[in-house]
């Protein structure tokens, strides 16, 4: 245990902690104590450990600023989790917390020497140097990268469990402070299903720690009443410890609670997210112990931690005076309230009556102390941003700041609201929020408790009515004169020397912003990008307003004209794992998958599917594949082709529809026949092929390639939305299993089975299609020949797939049937010279180049791509796909995509190449210029290592050129 306890042992303090449950943990290896309910930061603060981190650039000591997870000062490392907000993260027994971004120790950081070099590091310094002589940057980059960055990722870290939930509601209310509670209650009472989400573990927002009309009791009573009422409403669902991190223009709201991402659809959303405190900018305003008044109130009320023994408050509004009362109640001496203006009213009187010194018209101009503030200098304000010299030094160990707020407009802005600067209240406002979005409370510019309640109630009930489809009412009046007394117009005081921080995350000072403008970056967007103001982990919520003020002061432009930088989601940083959730990447398996596994298949990825590449050991792949090829060529083989796409096209216009989708002619195709299909896009590029089987005048069954079927289906439905033809397209890929039984013994095998299909040669010729039953299983049989042997592609309902596979495997056994995989099929089809779309075609291939002109119907008036293909035909092609064989059997085997080189120029490319055991040579397909495509013409392929392999053009098919075997 380090330091003595700083806890307040009084009623009314420490709302969230359980004094009966102490626990201990370590910070940088030292043991600390806390209580159940503490955050890491509150437990450390309670043990006098105010110093939490070192800053990004100058390695200055930093402590908590907001105590609400909104600043980067509290970033620590917890085990393998980097950049943890210590002021949000619940402390747990035994956790090991580490401080980050220092060399040596947090107390004695060797990198803090950077603070003394700051004068040599002007804003944008990295743009101004490190590049002469040329190439020198790489030597500077590495150390700069190491100096930058905050936490550390452990590449061995485990994947943890995260998931997602979907929520649907009429009204979503973001923020459970008084405005959010009132709005949610009103919405639920009006009859809407309402969802109230708050980031803290307890509802109440500032009612948890702040005051209403000077009174802590009044705040507590109001909170108790509202929470009790909210909890009692059946239509009101409450999520606490959950933060809404984004509202998206497509209607999603994202919320993160625990290990869960909630994806929320709400008819109406009310943003009652409160506001962000704004810093007072003065020399050394970043010293540990200087924190927002609300942070001190949170420390006291929520965690029972005294922010210090002797406090100074700098304020320009009554909130600062209220904090003074809290300090006094907690037993902290208030040395002085420094009022930037002349705040008056009962709160001020109450503070004064308790003997506190009040200095008006003055500000803090300096702070002494290093690891913790020790005293502050006070000076009279003499003009905007100007002061007299500091004459008054006040000893203190904590400083509370309350000089203004900036409404939390991020979410409304994500959703599309416009953000403007309102001079009257010296704050930004969201105007014209998109339909379905409303604001309440401080986010709407409404501050005084009575007005907040009335405005929020009206907003809540209006949202409920809108959600029910009832006409909306005029938005309630958000004008609140008290709002003007909150935010000081220019709480920025430059000292002669030293650092006054504008952006704590990025270590940017007043000078940096001024010099950005001096360097010519005078637009607020350029200032942000050049200086990096607002680019740190707290996304500028404490920096943007003061940056705009300085730019305004330097350029002389009114703040409203300067604009603001865009709010980008997320509101608070989101873990990658929250977005990923449980990775849902389904793997599609065919009905026969387990049979393939039993047969020892090696699988390969094909889109979402897994397909057998071959059946056997990886060590013996080449021989195994050759065996499979030989089985097909000499006996029979069976391949699972279930992944092939299947589309049922039915209706009176089925033939006419297919005629438009594909290049060939289908109207006159006889029932019971299959015909090749070739699909092109509007620019005439080949995108798919398959066969169209006509089972009835109004019914075609069209196959598509595994990877393209979804695209083909989309193209068909998309096209028919425009054509409005009388046709129905169903993607039945998953409904059917399919297997191709191929080889000279194929007919003999099926003829051993009970069937109502006549499989005899004459009754069921090549390119015929039949429906019927096979061994009692309903089937669609296609006599097609991708592998160049007699064969039957048998499609059956997916539920029968495994049974039919088993039946065929058993029936085929006496005939030497072997299962074969995709690798063997690639060889078999290439021996036949059949192309694979996507491998032998590329993103620009037209059918003529691919040698598919025979599949182009010349007389049809239209098909997709026709006009483009005809234009290209007239123009002439520059390449053509041809077969080739390697002429020197001793040369290395080329690979797919090796180039054909002539006279040092690229003239072509190999698209497919295999070593064919059947033919005893290396064969392939390649693109060549039209002048080089005659049979016997020779060319050279450049292979790995640069060797040139001689080859010659060979007509296809390489195997069985008369196509006799598929017809037997």
């Amino acid at each position, binding site marked *: 245990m380090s330091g003595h306890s700083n806890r307040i042992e009084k009623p009314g303090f420490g709302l969230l902690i359980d004094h009966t449950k102490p626990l201990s943990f370590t910070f940088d290896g030292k043991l600390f104590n806390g209580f159940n309910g503490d955050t890491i930061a509150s437990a450390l603060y309670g043990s006098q450990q105010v110093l939490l981190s070192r800053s990004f650039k100058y390695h200055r000591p930093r402590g908590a600023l907001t105590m609400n997870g909104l600043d980067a000062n509290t970033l620590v490392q917890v085990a393998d989790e980097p950049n943890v907000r210590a002021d949000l993260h619940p402390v747990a027994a035994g956790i090991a917390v580490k401080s980050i971004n220092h060399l040596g120790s947090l107390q004695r950081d060797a990198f803090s020497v950077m603070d003394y070099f700051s004068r040599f590091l002007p804003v944008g310094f990295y743009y101004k140097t490190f*590049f002469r002589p040329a190439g020198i940057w790489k030597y500077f980059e590495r150390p700069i990268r190491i100096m930058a*960055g905050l936490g550390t990722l452990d590449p061995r870290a485990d994947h943890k469990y995260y998931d997602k939930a979907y929520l649907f509601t009429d009204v979503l209310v973001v923020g459970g402070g008084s405005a959010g509670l009132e709005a949610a209650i009103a919405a639920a009472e009006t009859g809407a299903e309402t969802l109230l989400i708050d980031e803290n573990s307890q509802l109440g927002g500032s009612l948890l720690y702040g005051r209403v009309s000077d009174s802590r009791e009044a705040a507590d009573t109001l909170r108790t009443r509202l929470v009790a009422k909210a909890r009692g409403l059946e239509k009101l669902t409450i999520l606490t410890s959950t933060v809404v991190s984004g509202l998206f223009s497509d209607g999603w709201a994202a919320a993160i609670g625990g290990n869960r991402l909630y994806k929320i659809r709400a008819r109406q959303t009310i943003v009652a997210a409160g506001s962000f405190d704004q810093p007072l900018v003065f020399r050394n305003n970043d010293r540990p112990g200087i924190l927002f008044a609300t942070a001190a109130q949170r420390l006291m009320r929520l965690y029972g931690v005294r922010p210090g023994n002797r406090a100074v408050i700098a304020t320009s509004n009554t909130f600062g005076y209220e904090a003074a009362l809290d300090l006094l109640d907690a037993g902290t001496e208030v040395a002085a309230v420094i009022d930037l203006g002349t705040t008056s009213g009962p709160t001020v009187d109450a503070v004064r009556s308790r003997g506190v010194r009040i200095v008006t018209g003055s500000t803090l101009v300096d702070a002494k102390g290093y690891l913790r503030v020790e005293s502050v200098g006070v000076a009279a304000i003499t003009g905007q941003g100007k002061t007299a010299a500091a004459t008054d030094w006040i000893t203190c160990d904590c400083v509370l700041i309350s000089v203004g707020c900036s409404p939390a407009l991020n979410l409304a802005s994500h959703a599309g609201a416009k953000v403007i600067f309102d001079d009257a209240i010296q704050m930004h406002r969201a105007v014209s929020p998109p339909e379905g979005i409303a604001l309440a409370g401080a986010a709407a510019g409404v501050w005084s408790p009575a007005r907040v309640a009335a405005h929020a109630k009206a907003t809540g009930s209006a949202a409920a009515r809108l959600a029910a489809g009832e006409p909306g009412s005029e938005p309630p009046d958000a004008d609140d004169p008290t709002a003007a007394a909150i935010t000081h117009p220019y709480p920025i005081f430059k000292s002669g020397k030293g650092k006054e921080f504008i952006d704590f995350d990025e270590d940017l000072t007043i000078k940096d912003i001024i010099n950005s403008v001096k360097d010519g970056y005078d637009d607020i967007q350029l200032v942000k990008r050049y200086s990096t103001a607002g680019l740190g982990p707290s*996304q500028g919520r404490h920096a943007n307003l003061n940056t705009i003020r300085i730019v305004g002061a330097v350029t002389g432009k009114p703040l409203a004209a300067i604009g603001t930088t865009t709010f980008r*989601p997320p509101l608070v940083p989101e873990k*990658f794992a929250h977005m*990923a959730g449980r990775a849902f990447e389904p793997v599609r398996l065919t009905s026969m998958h387990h049979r393939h596994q039993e047969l020892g298949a090696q699988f390969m990825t094909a889109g979402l599917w897994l397909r057998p590449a071959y059946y056997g050991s990886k060590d013996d792949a080449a021989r195994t594949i050759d065996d499979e090829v030989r089985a097909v060529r000499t006996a029979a083989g069976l391949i699972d082709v279930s992944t092939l796409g299947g589309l049922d096209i039915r209706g009176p216009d089925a033939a006419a529809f297919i005629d438009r989708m594909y290049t060939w002619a289908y109207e006159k195709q006889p029932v019971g026949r299959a015909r090749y299909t070739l699909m092109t896009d509007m620019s005439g590029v080949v995108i798919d092929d398959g066969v169209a089987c006509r089972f009835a005048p109004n019914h075609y069954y069209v196959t598509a390639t595994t990877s393209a079927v979804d695209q083909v289906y989309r193209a068909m439905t998309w096209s028919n939305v425009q054509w409005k033809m009388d046709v129905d397209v169903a993607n039945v890929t998953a409904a059917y299993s399919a297997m191709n039984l191929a080889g000279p013994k194929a007919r003999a095998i099926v003829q051993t089975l009970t069937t109502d299909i006549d499989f005899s040669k004459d009754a069921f010729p090549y390119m015929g299609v039949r429906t019927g039953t096979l061994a009692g299983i309903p089937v669609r049989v296609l006599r097609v020949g991708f592998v160049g042997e007699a064969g039957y592609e048998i499609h059956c309902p997916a539920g029968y797939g495994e049974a039919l596979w088993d039946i065929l495997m058993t029936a085929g056994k006496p005939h030497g049937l072997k299962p074969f995989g995709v690798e063997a099929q690639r060889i078999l089809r290439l021996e036949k010279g059949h192309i694979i779309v996507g491998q032998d075609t*590329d993103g620009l291939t037209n059918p003529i180049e691919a040698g598919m002109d025979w599949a182009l119907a010349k007389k049809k008036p239209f098909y997709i791509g026709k006009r483009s293909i005809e234009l290209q035909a007239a123009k002439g092609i520059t390449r053509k796909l041809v077969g080739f064989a390697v002429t020197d059997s001793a040369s290395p085997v080329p690979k797919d995509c090796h180039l054909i*080189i002539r006279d040092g120029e690229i003239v072509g490319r190999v698209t497919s190449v295999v070593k064919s055991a059947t033919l005893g040579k290396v064969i392939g397909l390649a693109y060549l210029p039209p002048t080089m495509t005659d049979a016997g013409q020779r060319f050279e392929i450049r292979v790995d290592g640069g060797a040139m392999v001689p080859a010659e053009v060979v007509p296809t098919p390489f195997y069985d050129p008369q196509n006799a075997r598929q017809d037997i």
Partner: protein
Amino acid sequence: MPFALLKYGLSREHPDDPHFRWKPDLKKTYDVVIIGAGGHGLAAAYHLAKDHGITNIAVLEKGWLAGGNTARNTTIVRANYLTPEGVAFYKESVELFRTLSNELDINVMYSERGHFTLAHTDAAMRTARWRAEVNKHLGVNSEVIDSAEVKRICPTMNVTDEARYPILGALYHPPGAIARHDAVAWGYAKEAMKRGVEVHTQTEVKKILIENGRAIGVETNRGIIHAGKVMQAVAGSSSHVARMAGLKLPIKTIPLQACVSEPVKPILDQIVVSGSLHVYISQSARGEMVMGGATDPYGLYSSRSTLDFKESLMGHMLELFPFMGELRILRQWAGMADMTPDFSPVMGLTPLENYYIDAGWGTWGFKATPVCGKRMAECVATGRQPDLIKPFALSRFSTFDLVGEKGAASVGH
């Protein structure tokens, strides 16, 4: 500590001249008006002034300096394209990038990191080999490597078979680099303005003035400007501006989203791209992971962000880098990608005399900034299409002379 920084420590006042010499008023006439003050327009202005002595130029920008896609891209520079035309073009860009800091007197933080295009399928391996072969032929350093070599170069990547889409190998391109995008544009603006070029922001072109089939100027929200020549360089709004010139472009504009993480200490040196998983990632000098994916699934003129984008991106990111689960996304945004049918840009002459186009930059615009600026300047100055960009002429779409880069351009920003 470099000496260049000493002066800042030793002088009382900020010792620099402003980078930008803004001129408040528009002139009535310029030799050249460039629409769009992004990287491309500024680079063209710089090269017109420096290489061709044309300095009476106005670069007009509807928003703020370099605030469009120049400010929104993910800063990757590479030359490992697929077509010989593309490779030759981007190769010159890489060469210009290497000396750009010195050329522009601003550190653009050009950092060669090595660039992986991962292959999870046979088809992707084939495309990788195709690109490698074309690259090597043209003197660009690219190799197909297997998964073991991927692991050796980038040990933190998950190359196990347990992944949903195991990594089979990659196209590895050692010169692949990142640069500070803003600094590139600012550098061109600074050096162009130094040579007399005027840049006018908040100046929106409403109309292209045409007389006898020639562009003669523009009408803006600040009045009419006459110009000898007009060039458009407005990625994301190309079709809209071209329409004002009477040109119809074969371009579909689609949002492209990106995001960055909170900064962490260096853990990833390379640029990693996976087309199959629709992800790419690199770590900036500041320590942020800079990440993106494929373009959105539909066309839209809106730079809104979506939740779906982050969900699918991170689902796949954690496949590649499971240890990044606890890292946090800090900020997301979107830019507008002008997609052409062949995934190649459009540069040069148009049917409208004295009107020049620089468009169709899809997801590959930043990496071409220097070469495009240089060659567009040459084109505008001479009125002729330079050889290097001849293949990218607008006329190619009517003659089917496309430059097919789909296999190398998508996701591979």
